[in-house]
């Protein structure tokens, strides 16, 4: 790996890990969603995220130059080698929890990919230009549900408030940048996450306003460490997700 690639590789892996882990969580709703339409919707969203992860992993494998494929990176790394945020690995919880997480994540990722599409790294820019179009309807889908749930029955409202309360502290990690990523931001390869906060705030405030929900008063900061490989729920998820590939290494289908 060249010096430049050594910095970009972990960053690209982190982008892939967020997408893969949330994509796998969403896929766990398949056949379990409240309606058939929603079952199809969540499976479609999962497919988008897993598709994005595949592109990031394929790029990471090329940058690393050691012949690792997207499958090697998805199925043959242990939890400590994953650098996804803690929010995306949280178990799905109820439907409100899943939808609030989708909103918090997509409201960040949509403008993030918009910014990444102007990256000086052409491989990253072209993935982001593709993925940003998908994240646009991820935001819309989550927003419509959070409004419906927040402005719905006492039960749905209560569950949505609880989900917002649980997930709010995890948002902080979405905006974190380590020294290596700050270096990439200075080189106009990675967006500066903090600069996207006003856009994220505007989307969240607009949706919560429509939903008749109060924005939590405390700042959106809390559990962290996922980027450094310190995970809570990931190992259990990977044990299931990776079991088939590890039982049959090299299998093709």
């Amino acid at each position, binding site marked *: 790996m060249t010096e430049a690639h050594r910095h970009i590789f972990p960053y690209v892996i982190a982008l892939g890990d967020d997408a893969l882990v949330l994509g796998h969580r969403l896929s766990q709703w398949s056949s379990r969603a409240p309606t058939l*339409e*929603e079952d*199809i*919707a969540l499976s*479609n*969203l999962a*497919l*988008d*995220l*897993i*598709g*994005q992860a*595949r*592109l990031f992993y394929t790029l990471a494998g090329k940058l690393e130059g050691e012949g690792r494929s997207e499958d090697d990176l998805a199925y043959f790394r242990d939890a400590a080698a994953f650098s996804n945020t803690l929010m995306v690995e949280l178990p799905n919880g109820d439907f409100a929890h899943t939808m609030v997480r989708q909103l918090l994540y997509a409201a960040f990722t*949509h403008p993030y990919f918009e910014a990444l599409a102007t990256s000086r790294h*052409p491989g990253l*820019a*072209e*993935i982001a*230009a*593709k*993925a940003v*179009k*998908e994240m*646009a*309807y991820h*935001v*819309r*889908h989550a*927003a*419509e549900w959070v409004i419906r749930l927040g402005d719905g029955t006492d039960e749905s409202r209560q569950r949505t408030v609880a989900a917002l309360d649980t997930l709010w502290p995890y948002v902080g990690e979405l905006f974190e940048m380590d020294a290596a990523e700050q270096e990439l931001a200075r080189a106009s390869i990675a967006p500066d996450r903090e600069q996207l906060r006003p856009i994220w705030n505007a*989307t969240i405030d*607009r*949706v919560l306003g*429509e939903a008749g929900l109060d924005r939590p008063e405390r700042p959106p900061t809390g559990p962290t460490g996922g980027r450094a490989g310190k995970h809570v729920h990931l190992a259990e998820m990977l044990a299931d997700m990776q079991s088939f590939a590890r039982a049959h290494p090299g299998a093709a289908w």
Partner: protein
Amino acid sequence: MSATRETDGLCTGDADIARARAVAAAVPDPEIPVVTLADLGILRGVERRDGAIFVTLTPTYTGCPATLAIKLDVEAALLEAGFADAKVEIILSPAWSTDDITDEGRRKLREYGIAPPPPRATGGGELFSAPNVACPRCGSSDTTRISEFGSTPCKALWRCESCSEPFDVFKCL
């Protein structure tokens, strides 16, 4: 290297590029076989590299499961047409948009019962927006979106309030 092929009459000259393009362009989409790859606007280029035909395709959605099937279909069609050395590569840039679907493709979709995608300018990423879509069966614009997600990643599920029929809409990307 190309001398042998010239005597075979295969994979040489611009006429072959045009023929390879016609073959690749006519491959049907595996999920919506009424439209071809050219109709969808996902056939990006046909050229010659190192003597062989080189085709570039672009995926519709990042996670579209049909992408690999489409690549294999194009390879098979080119092989059958005599382009034994043809290579097919998937490229991402510039990102595909539903605006790339040709007028011919839109007509075929409509006749097949799938409302063609609205122009991006009217149905893009705006929060809380839903485009106006005409029913592909009766033409009424009194339609309702049931779900933004349908039987494939590229389709949404709608219902016509005039003729009461549900229908697919090729969603705007």
